């Protein structure tokens, strides 16, 4: 039984259909990357899994349990944490307070404030600063750290690299293996194909709301990926 099972899930923005009958499974402990062009539906998929958007049709199972009806804040309690696109840290709270509020649901696990600050040393120096004054990279680290504070079984990362310089992106991605090693399953969404392939054990490509390609990075040819990505 997989940790997360998405079965034939569709999603709509009003009349516009963003996801068509998407199915995928994520096994415990693995790191899965979802790639695709802008508007392919990657973020929508994460939003549906995290509970921010409803799914119409299909089912979502987490740890064997149906979670379609579970509101977003209770999915956090169940063990799913989303690091949203655009980071969305709480600007008027300090770094430390952002981390503390991340533990709102009080799930037990190895992630606490010292552990997160050890994972992201650049945050330690800024722990009493308000999140609004942090740089983009620091905010991204903070957003990831905040999600970790909930000790999730499944961590969803939405476009970590967006708007950040490559060197910062590399630093952030260096943390992923450490997170995975601690036992967290990671589902990440990326436009940056290089990073996605390097960070993950398995990759899925979304094209216009449908899965166009799926497999292990080593097994997929460049051409196959490009075709699936751009749909040509």
């Amino acid at each position: 039984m997989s940790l997360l099972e998405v079965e034939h899930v569709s999603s709509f923005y009003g009349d516009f259909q963003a996801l068509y009958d998407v199915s995928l499974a994520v096994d415990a402990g693995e790191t899965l990357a979802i790639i695709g062009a802008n508007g392919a539906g990657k973020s929508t998929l994460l939003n549906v899994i995290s509970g921010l958007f409803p799914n119409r049709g299909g089912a979502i199972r987490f740890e064997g349990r149906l979670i379609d009806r579970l509101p977003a804040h209770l999915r956090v309690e169940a063990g799913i944490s989303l690091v949203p696109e655009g980071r969305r840290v709480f600007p008027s709270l300090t770094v430390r307070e952002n981390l503390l509020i991340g533990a709102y649901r009080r799930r037990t696990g190895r992630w606490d404030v010292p552990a997160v600050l050890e994972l992201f040393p650049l945050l330690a120096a800024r722990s009493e600063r308000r999140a609004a004054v942090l740089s983009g990279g620091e905010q991204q680290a903070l957003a990831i750290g905040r999600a970790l504070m909930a000790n999730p079984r499944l961590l969803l990362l939405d476009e970590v690299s967006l708007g950040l310089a490559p060197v910062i992106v590399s630093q952030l991605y260096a943390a992923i293996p450490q997170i995975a090693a601690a036992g967290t399953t990671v589902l990440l969404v990326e436009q940056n194909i290089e990073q996605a392939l390097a960070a993950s054990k398995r990759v899925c490509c979304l094209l216009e709301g449908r899965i166009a390609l799926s497999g292990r990075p080593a097994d997929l040819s460049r051409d196959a990926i490009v075709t699936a990505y751009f749909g040509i």
Partner: protein
Amino acid sequence: MEWVNAVVQGVLLGALYALLATGLSLVFGVMRMVNLAHGDLATLAAYLALVVVQATGVNPFLALPVVVPLMMVLGYLLQRLLLNRSIDHGPLSPLLITFGLSVIIQNVLLDVFSADSRGLDAGTLENESIHLTDQLAVGVFPLLTFVVAVVVLGGLGLILARTQLGRALRATSDDHTAARLVGIDHRHLYAVALAIALGTVAIAGIFLGIRTTFGPSDGPTRLISAFEAVIIGGLGSLWGTLIGGIVLGVAQALGNQVSPSFQLLAGHLVFLAILMFRPHGLFAPASARQT
């Protein structure tokens, strides 16, 4: 000397205005909602205390432990069952609903209690005063009011700054969608915010009821006082609201010295002046002043 006395009275009254304003400010901070029934809820609390006092004969202060929790529960339910739904319908909706509630509360109070002025009698406490100097006396009750107001405001400030609940309220205020992502049920938190607001409004309403007489249609005046205190002090700052209340209280007290009928107008004029020259209030946080 009378003027100094007036200023002192104004400061003490101002703290009560600040207490009254706290709920309005908190609710606006967390859910960007202005509760137009705010003043009427303070009046309601005074009437509830009256009922308790008349039924049991106790001192009005002893009605606090009954009325305050009752009002807090009322606030939670009001937000959860009615106002949360209205927030979904756009910014006009909560204004219209709370205005409707204001009218309903005033008329229900009028029906049940008639238009007669009532008072809460706290006994001899109301008449005692402490003499600071030969010519300067401060009433014990106004002083007590000041202390209670500062303690409540301080307590609320501590809760907001130091506790997980306070962090949750601030986080929800910043970004309620991101709040959901850390596991916060924002609808529950909105209701908690209104519950806290109604708790502080109840304390303010009862103290106001002891201080002066009250009637069913006092709500609007209370609302305006609370609102002016918030605007003078600056949105988003709890201590700003305290200063705002004090400025308003002093303005009214000085106006009263000129002529009793000038009291309210003096307060309004100071409010309008602040609006003209410092529209963000005296203590707006730096982020607000940049806009």
